[in-house]
């Protein structure tokens, strides 16, 4: 079974690598549901260039014109047409909890259950988001095909594989997180009465956040306008602290600042203290405490809008980031992190398999910096928050949330107010988030060697008369402030690095002759100064070989080839 899965994954990898890009659809376009089984379906879709817009637990949602439908039929792919003409329609994927929810949706528009707990909803005219009952989470379909990112998943990482230790410097940063600031931040947002995205109050809340970020002296603060749901406009607030070492490599911490409540009140009263003034205040607090510290990597602080309408703000941002080729290394999405239905409350970390390392690191950071317990859930079908549009664009992203399924009785109610929140849990969740973010972005420390840059990999071949040994050769520019270097390797991105050299390396080059064939490795390098202090880690370098000897990207190759030619 395992072997079959590996073969199928390899076949899919080849098809995705060599297959055509999604074709532009033309003519009348239908919305179809395609079951994910058999597994070969994915590779067929990739080969046909089908425009897949959402991955769910058991099926895919795709847009398909008549040519696509014919191709699918000829290829033996089963599908169900949900709507034959998608022109000028918006579709929302809606989370449901039972037949009653589906009936509510059908009373408001067209709804089709596509799998247990999930429906697709649309209306003949107008904005479907306004017709969805407030209690139901929803997500708009991705703006472009997500199929390129539905690639074979990495092997499951071992639980507890994170070996990082508590960092005293990060601890001093985390200690700056203030409960008073957090509650003040929630109060400020709650005081706008409503932050429903279509209201001027929401715009005003955005202005307030813009001012708050600006006051912190970050490198850049900007509004990011976008249109959503029938031509409405709203604005994300984006602040950035540029990395000293890797300015083009970005970690994102984000939360949505818009709110909602039942339709009768949402335009006048939607305090959204837990959902999601809490996350927004935590992002603002993270910006405050990190602002004075130079960091290796760029950190982007984002307050999204129109999340409650269908994740439109994050959808716009993630899509634009991918289009611009931005290197977003990881996303921490905080959504509802302050209500405790039980004490002590733990934090849930929702990730897809590509992002599981973020959950492992978050679990460790919670233990190191906040005495906060957590629970990792790897489930790519949990899509109803701002992490999901990043998944759609192939970026690693994590949702931190107090409970999933939700346990907050005030969720999307006018009673979701500051007095219902647990300040201790809120502060712990924020401290863990800041600890993780600081570990990822890496504070630059005085007296330490600079963080190495320019780590590159190539292959080096040793030959005897009748055999050859091909090894991974790592190299990086030498640094004047370093007397040596250490090289670390792991088989699981960002986790459990093992030092490969015994004594610091004198030269800025290292050959890894112990790497096994047909595996993916992740390397980082550090510089060691004359006093023995070790720098932060370089950006992680992935070195991988695909089956056979074909390599992907310029820094990857077949690690070992041995035997007579």
């Amino acid at each position, binding site marked *: 079974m395992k072997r079959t899965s590996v073969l199928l994954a390899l076949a899919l990898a080849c098809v995705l690598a060599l297959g055509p890009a999604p074709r532009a659809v033309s003519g009348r376009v239908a919305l179809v549901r395609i079951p994910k089984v058999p597994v070969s379906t994915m590779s067929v879709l990739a080969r046909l260039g089908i425009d897949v817009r959402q991955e769910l637990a058991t099926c895919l949602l795709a847009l398909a014109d008549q040519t696509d439908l014919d191709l699918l039929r000829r290829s033996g792919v089963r599908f169900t047409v949900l709507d034959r003409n998608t022109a000028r329609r918006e579709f929302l994927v809606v989370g449901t909890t039972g037949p009653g929810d589906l009936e509510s949706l059908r009373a408001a528009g067209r709804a089709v259950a596509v799998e247990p707990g999930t429906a697709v909803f649309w209306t003949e005219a107008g904005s479907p988001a306004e017709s969805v009952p407030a209690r139901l989470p929803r997500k708009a379909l991705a703006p472009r095909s997500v199929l390129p990112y539905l690639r074979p998943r990495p092997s499951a990482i071992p639980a507890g594989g994170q070996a990082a230790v508590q960092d005293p410097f990060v601890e001093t940063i985390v200690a700056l997180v203030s409960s008073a600031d957090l509650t003040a931040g929630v109060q400020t947002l709650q005081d706008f009465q409503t932050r429903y995205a279509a209201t001027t109050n929401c715009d005003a809340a955005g202005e307030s956040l813009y001012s708050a970020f600006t006051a912190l002296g970050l490198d850049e603060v900007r509004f990011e306008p976008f249109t959503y749901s029938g031509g409405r406009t709203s604005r994300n607030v984006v602040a950035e602290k540029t990395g000293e070492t890797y300015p083009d490599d970005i970690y994102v911490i984000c939360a949505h600042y818009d709110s909602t409540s039942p339709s009768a009140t949402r335009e006048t009263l939607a305090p959204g203290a837990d959902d999601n003034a809490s996350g927004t205040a935590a992002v603002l607090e993270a910006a405050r405490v990190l602002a004075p510290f130079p960091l290796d990597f760029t950190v982007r602080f984002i307050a999204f809008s129109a999340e409650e309408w269908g994740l439109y703000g994050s959808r716009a941002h993630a899509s634009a980031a991918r289009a611009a080729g931005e290197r977003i290394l990881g996303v921490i999405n905080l959504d509802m992190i302050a209500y405790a239905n039980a004490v002590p409350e733990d934090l849930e970390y929702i990730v897809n398999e590509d992002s599981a390392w973020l959950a492992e690191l978050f679990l460790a950071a919670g233990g190191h910096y906040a005495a906060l317990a957590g629970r990792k859930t790897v489930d790519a079908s949990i899509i109803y928050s701002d992490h999901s549009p990043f998944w759609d664009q192939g970026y690693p992203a994590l949702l931190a949330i107090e409970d999933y399924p939700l346990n907050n009785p005030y969720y999307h109610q006018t009673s979701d107010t500051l007095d219902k929140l647990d300040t201790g849990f809120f502060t712990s969740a924020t401290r863990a988030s800041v600890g993780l973010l600081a570990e990822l972005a890496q504070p630059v420390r005085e007296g330490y060697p600079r963080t190495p840059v320019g780590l590159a990999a*190539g292959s*080096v071949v*040793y*030959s*005897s008369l009748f055999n050859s*040994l091909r090894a991974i050769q790592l190299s990086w520019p030498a640094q004047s402030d370093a007397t040596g270097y250490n090289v670390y390797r792991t088989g699981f991105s960002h986790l459990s690095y093992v030092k490969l050299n015994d004594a610091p390396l004198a030269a800025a080059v290292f050959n890894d002759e112990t790497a096994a064939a047909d595996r993916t490795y992740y390397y980082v390098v550090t510089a060691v100064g004359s006093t023995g202090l070790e720098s932060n880690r370089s950006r992680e370098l992935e070195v991988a070989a695909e089956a056979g000897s074909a390599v992907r990207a310029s820094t990857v190759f077949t690690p070992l080839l041995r035997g007579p030619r």
Partner: protein
Amino acid sequence: MRARRVGAALALAVLGLAAAATAQHLTVSLAAGGFSPSDATYRQIYGNGMVIAGDAWLAFEKHFGLAVGFGRLSDDGLAVPVSGGEASFPLSFTRTTVPLLVFYELGSKAVTVRLGAGAGFHSYRESWQTVDLEFSDSKVGPRLVLAVSAAIFARLSLYASATYDSIPSGAGAALGTNIDLGGFQVLGGLAYRIF
């Protein structure tokens, strides 16, 4: 395979005994010396090597004779980084040779010169000492020999020889294919005339 080899060895021994019965004299030599490979790749990895060899020279009438023997070459080397590596991978190479020659002998009782030509039966093994890599094979190649012995006692002589082998291996790795394992070897030692 093993039975065939044993059979061939027995046949050779019987023929040898028959030949010895009709031979005019039999000389054995024992020598050691150096080997200089002719292949540049071989030389780059291993440089020159050490050889020990023993031969039996069976002379018949009209100065012709047959010679058989045994030789062993051993050498240590380092794998060559083809694209800039700095690691060190020690190698060892051994070759065992069984030559079968026809020779022509001339000279006096004091100094004997033998010119021989024939084939060498070579078995060789290359090993990486720190990595689990190994290669072994066997080949037959032509051999030319010039041997000189100078009597110092009634039966005992000083012995010297120069040998050329060609051993196209038909194999190779990143540095080249069909590596020739042959070359020149110059040996010095003693020869003893049995009868």
